[in-house]
């Protein structure tokens, strides 16, 4: 079993703690001039997304996590699994619902996602920051109403519910920030 020592700690390093994979968000070296050195880290649980503080003595070792982040294309969902593919090798990976829970509403076929693999299985998927999606449902547009800030609910092709300006029509392509779920603009090519 591969181990990593605190001296190799840096943000982005992945390791196993109490059976769960974590990534280091922040690492601070703490040491009195004449005393014990420590690493105080903020780490994110890659399964739950929760960020916690932990303290290690310098020289302590943790179990390295076989975690990789791979660019993949989303393919389809079969009711049980969500299928992704590595575009260079065409290797396919099936993700369980827990892995895509937070991003289900942003999964669009052929779009690129960063899939985190732990021991070869998908642990989570991160959508691109900006994504273009078609409006599949919304109230008709109100011609000429450009009132600042006025919005209406809309559903996009992936199932996400968003708010769009009143002038946006069903069937249009819009650009959305997936981190906030906010409408940004009409897509340029529509």
């Amino acid at each position: 079993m591969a181990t990593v020592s605190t001296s190799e700690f840096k943000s982005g390093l992945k390791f196993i703690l109490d059976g769960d994979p974590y990534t280091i968000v922040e690492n601070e070296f703490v040491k009195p001039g004449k005393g014990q050195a420590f690493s105080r880290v903020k780490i994110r649980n890659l399964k739950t997304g929760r960020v916690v503080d932990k303290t290690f003595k310098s020289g302590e070792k943790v179990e390295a996590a076989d975690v990789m982040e791979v660019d993949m294309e989303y393919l389809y969902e079969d009711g049980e699994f969500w299928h992704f593919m590595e575009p260079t090798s065409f290797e396919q990976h099936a993700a369980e619902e827990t892995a895509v829970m937070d991003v289900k509403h942003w999964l669009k076929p052929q779009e690129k996602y960063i899939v985190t693999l732990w021991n070869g299985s998908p642990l989570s998927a991160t959508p691109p920051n900006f994504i273009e999606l078609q409006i599949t449902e919304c109230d008709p547009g109100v011609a000429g109403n450009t009132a600042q800030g006025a919005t209406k609910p809309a559903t996009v092709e992936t199932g996400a519910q968003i708010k769009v300006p009143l002038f946006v029509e069903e069937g249009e392509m819009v650009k959305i920030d997936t981190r906030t779920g906010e409408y940004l603009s009409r897509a340029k090519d529509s």
Partner: protein
Amino acid sequence: MDWSPNTTQQTRKSRAQMLHDIRAFFLQRDVLEVETPALSQFGNTDPFIESIQCIQQKSEGSELRYLHTSPEYPMKRLLAADSGDIYQISKVWRAGESGNKHNPEFTLLEWYRVGFSYQKLMQEVEELLSIVLPDLPKKPQFKTYESLFLEKFNINPHIATNEQLIDCVREHIDHLDTEGMNNQSLLDAILSFCIEPEFESSHLTFVYDYPVSQSALAQIRQTEHYPVAERFEVYLGQSELGNGYQEEVDSKRNKQILSDENQARKDFNLETVKEDRLFLAAAEKGIPASAGVAIGLDRVLMCITGEKSIQKVINFPWDKA
């Protein structure tokens, strides 16, 4: 390749001004500037400080030397040779110490005052720091190590058992595995993570009278109930700037300290270090009663410039050196 310095010209000027102010301060007080070797045949035995080892290849084999972690041992040899009051500004090296407040190579100001008490030396530290840090609020805090632990946790650090300290660590520090921690490292953890964060920011705090497990080369004083180490640390806000002692001048005890530290190294499964026999020989001849202190000047420069990371006050820190 990023070859450029990490500092601004203003920071470089602040460093030059700081060094000038320090030299003027000691010139005025008749303290002599000295130099001692950076590369020594002997290393620092302190189990929590790692020397960087250097190898000199020779035709008859290789010779191991250690980069000094502070000029303490040779400066005390100068004291034993009747140098009187001395100071030194030098680069020192400590293996593996990297972070926002640490660079493995850093600049240390160390000085010794013959006949001074450590209380008097604390005053002088304050006087020096208020010259290089003109905006420093008056009236530093003076706190005994004991009062800090009593006020925060109702624990007396001089007599607390390791079990009590372990309970305190478990309750207040996230996920710290106490396995293999001795009295000193448990106290360090509580001080670093629970007490120092509450020091008043932008004020000087002097912490003094340490538990004997934290004595290093400080003199031990017997009180009515337990012995205390006549050692102090100075902080600006939460940043530790320096460490000082009423110097232990008893040669037998100095010998004992170095050998105890090597024993602690064995207990921690660390390599032992060649004890400085030249320092011990000077101690046998006699080091005069004195107090000494070392101040990390890069940390002081962080305070002067307001930089949050030591990497921003060193032209070429470790990764760019």
